[in-house]
């Protein structure tokens, strides 16, 4: 915005007088629900109750309601725009709706709930800060509800609101609501969404949508709109890692050459040292230009023009970054892919990969598995059809500069375009590189949320890649999780012995050797268990950077804790091994006499008896020790390392 003003100056007037709201921010959210969950009614209700609907629209809806033979105004008709939707009473494509309150402007990506569901919800979720998932109180948590939650998690949406709708049809009964909350919570525990809020509502009658309902005094929380107005925006913005994909080169004359684009994450200041990828040329930011004058700083999300002190060749598709904070560079990517086209994915066929401002040919080399989005099961697959999601390996013709999607959605996302039809056929979320030795990614990034923005990762004196090259095998962390007595340590010891015999650098960490020293101050409360696993993960990470294959045998009952450790290691280097055995088997084995002690009340908080164990949702390996010997299990682990090309023996 320019700072100078001309006649008609409204400066000095209050925002109320001018109608402008300088502090108003913007929340993008997506709504997900099945055909009859009342999603359109909810949106209609939000628009209606926030007075975002104009009289002529209301008249049109009243007229259309009558035409459809309905005796009251059908709020869903406010949003069901296209003729076919009206006729079939369904929403068929992602539609964007807008409303504002004095606090915030809202953009709703309204995603439909029938067969094309996954593709549309992925589209709507790609830019959302929050997802509203509707559950019909009368029907409970259906398969679709789980699918919505999974996609919310996969697309990295930080906030989820579960709106339990149609409470009016179950007499506003708390028991119905409580059961749905518990049911949903069990599934959501396997996902990575951090902030879930449950709200009982009736979209049709307006309870707890904009105003607090008086008919559910047992519900202590606020209505849906107040959550939408107060949730923190920008939670998925990465403000640490500066990435500037060059969009367009501006060259009005021989004396000016500027690089137009947006700092998609992080920020840069005039005078900062930068590196240009892929050339690797170093230079410095000379100025940050905008139409409204030069700036000292280009902050995340701002469209600017950068100039550099050196005349170097920079073009669209290049990326300007900081020398000590580089993205990963690789040709082969490990990614989740959501297929969006009626023609199935063809493995091995070239597609155009659109990533930041680059367009590169790429093939899908293979499909690791297809995710059953309703059960989270992994199914073997040779292709992906429309609305299917799989984990795949991509090979690009040129190296791609990226971060994992979880850390940076702007540099971790891509789409595939069909070279013949030009259709956008798939959306991808990068997990990491596969097998390629990456350029130095900074390992602290995974826990960047706890690292202050001023901390710059200096890198290891001797990079892990150099150590790996010398020792002839890759570093990895094998994380064995399972209940006490399941056989984690036994298998871990066998695997380590075998690797050691073959000349690998190894280390074995288990609950006992850590709890006697480093973690001697910790007990078994949930908080202490979290801290124990955090320390174990950090220690494992240090050995990992030293080049070791680290075997970690920890009960580690919480999915979140294991996921945090996973985030410390590059993709493909953290191998979660679920060592499975039922309580009866463990109790029968009881190598340390703990089950006996627990059953007599001598131990509280004992996992599997008096404390919960959250099974891994997507372990790399599952070992059922009821049917498999420890030796066979060890072979299975070694074989996995070999197939993943972590070891070559």
């Amino acid at each position, binding site marked *: *915005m*320019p700072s100078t*003003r*001309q006649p*008609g100056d*409204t400066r000095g007037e209050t925002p109320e007088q*001018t*109608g*402008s*709201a300088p502090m108003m*921010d*913007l929340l993008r959210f997506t709504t997900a629900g099945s055909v009859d969950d009342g999603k359109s009614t909810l949106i209609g209700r939000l628009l209606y109750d926030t007075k975002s609907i*104009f*009289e*002529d629209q209301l008249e049109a809806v009243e007229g259309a309601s009558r035409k459809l033979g309905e005796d009251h105004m059908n709020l869903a008709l406010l*949003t069901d*725009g*296209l003729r076919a939707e009206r006729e079939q009473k369904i929403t*068929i*494509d*992602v*539609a*964007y709706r*807008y409303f504002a309150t004095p606090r915030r*402007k809202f953009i709703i990506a309204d995603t439909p709930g029938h067969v094309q569901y996954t*593709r*549309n919800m*992925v*589209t709507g979720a790609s*830019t959302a*800060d929050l997802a509203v998932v509707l559950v019909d109180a009368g029907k409970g948590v259906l398969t679709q509800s789980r699918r919505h939650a999974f996609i919310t998690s996969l697309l990295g949406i930080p906030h989820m609101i579960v709106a339990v709708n149609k409470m009016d049809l179950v007499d506003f009964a708390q028991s119905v609501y409580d059961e749905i909350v518990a049911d949903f919570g069990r599934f959501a525990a396997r996902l990575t969404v951090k902030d879930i809020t449950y709200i009982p509502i009736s979209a049709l009658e307006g309870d707890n949508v904009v105003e607090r309902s008086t008919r559910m005094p047992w519900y202590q929380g606020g209505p849906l709109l107040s959550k939408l107005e107060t949730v923190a*925006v*920008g939670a998925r*913005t990465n403000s640490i890692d500066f990435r500037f994909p060059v*969009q*367009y080169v*501006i060259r*009005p004359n021989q004396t*000016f050459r500027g690089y*137009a684009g*947006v700092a*998609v*994450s992080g920020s840069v200041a005039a005078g900062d040292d930068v590196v240009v990828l892929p050339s690797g040329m170093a230079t410095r930011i000379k100025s940050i230009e905008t*139409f409204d004058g030069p700036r000292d700083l280009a902050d*995340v*999300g*701002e*469209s600017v023009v950068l100039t550099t002190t050196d005349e170097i060749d920079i073009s669209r598709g290049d990326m300007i970054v900081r020398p000590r904070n580089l993205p990963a560079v690789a040709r082969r990517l490990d990614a989740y892919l959501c297929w*969006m086209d009626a023609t199935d994915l063809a493995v091995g066929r070239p597609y155009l990969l*659109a*990533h930041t401002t680059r367009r590169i040919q790429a093939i899908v080399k293979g499909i690791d598995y297809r995710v059953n989005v309703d059960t989270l099961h992994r199914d073997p697959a040779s292709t992906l059809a429309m609305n299917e999601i799989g984990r795949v390996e991509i090979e690009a013709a040129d190296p791609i500069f990226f971060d994992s999607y979880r850390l940076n*959605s702007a540099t971790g*996302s*891509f*789409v595939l*375009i069909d070279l013949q039809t*030009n*259709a*956008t056929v798939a*959306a991808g979320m990068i997990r990491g590189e596969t097998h390629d030795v990456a350029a130095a990614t900074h390992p602290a990034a995974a826990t960047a949320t706890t690292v202050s923005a001023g901390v710059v990762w200096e890198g290891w004196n001797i990079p892990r890649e150099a150590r790996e090259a010398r020792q002839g095998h890759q570093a990895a962390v094998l994380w064995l999780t399972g209940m006490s007595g399941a056989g984690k340590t036994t298998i871990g010891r066998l695997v380590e012995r075998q690797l050691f015999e073959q000349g690998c650098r190894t280390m074995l960490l288990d609950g006992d050797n850590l709890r006697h020293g480093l973690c001697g101050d910790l007990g078994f409360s949930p908080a202490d268990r979290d801290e124990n696993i955090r320390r174990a993960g950090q220690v494992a990470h240090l050995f990992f950077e030293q080049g070791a294959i680290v075997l970690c045998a920890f009960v580690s009952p919480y999915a979140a804790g294991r996921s945090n450790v996973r985030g410390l290691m590059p993709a493909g280097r953290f191998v979660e091994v679920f060592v499975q055995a039922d309580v009866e088997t463990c109790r029968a084995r009881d190598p340390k006499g703990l089950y006996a002690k627990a059953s007599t009340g001598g131990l509280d908080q004992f996992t599997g008896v008096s404390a919960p164990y959250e099974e891994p949702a997507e372990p790399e390996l599952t070992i059922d020790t009821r049917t498999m010997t420890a030796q066979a299990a060890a072979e299975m682990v070694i074989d996995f390392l070999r197939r993943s090309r972590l070891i070559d023996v």
Partner: protein
Amino acid sequence: MHTSSRGHLPQLESEGILILREVAAQFERPALLFSGGKDSIVVAWLARKAFAPARVPFPLLHIDTGHNFPETLRFRDDFARTMDCTLLVRQVQDSIDQGRVQEETGAAASRNALQTTTLLDAIKELGLDVAIGGARRDEEKARATERIFSHRDVFGQWDPRNQRPELWNLYNGRKNHGEHFRVFPLSNWTELDIWQYISAEDIPLPGLYFAHQREIVERDGMLLATTEHLRLDPSDTVSTRTVRFRTVGDATCTGAVESSASTVADIIIETAAARITERGGRADDKRSDTAMEDRKRQGYF
């Protein structure tokens, strides 16, 4: 790139600039559809920001119905000059003279629908592969599903059933020979956002937007200006009222509203309290409940 705490207008501006730069990078021959209305003025304003210090690398294209208010045309020419933009004008009258379209008859006759043919002819003549427009998704329900990069087939038609998914800010402008795109940088703006931005940036506007005295006839609850192009019916009664226009399209079908709002600040207050959508003043949308969808399928703006 999602949100930051910078407030909604800078975010919308930055998004608009990003979209315009994508257009310049992905297409060979773009043009910005310019009507002299506030939305296309804002798009042109963003374009100047997007490419500064260089000139806007594409022309403004006005499809002139021949039924425009003279003050809009004067403003159009001045604005293009101030913005240092090339202005191209194509006339609906030419399409009529060439027999490409037939003028509607009757009291409700309008040249709005005829623009489609002139536009498609201009796209072909100029070899355009993309036309940038000022449409917003909040204007009309059919637009709520339209992509920012909106594909048009060889006949210039929009297929709402077969749109490309549009994710993150990865815009796919690839097309086959003969096809083209419409791109809408203001997709995520509302009418109020437009006014707030005009106020914050002090953007010049045609005088029609501000309250003035004018001769008016009232038809079906709509206030139409008496111009040489409006055919008066014997039942019409002409009166002078204080009005302004919320859109400045074809004078024969653009309705005025009674208003005393004479500054942008007044208009913002009026808009925030408005109870009628701006398209609610347009006779062509009133023809049927899905009038806009039907026109868009045929290649309308």
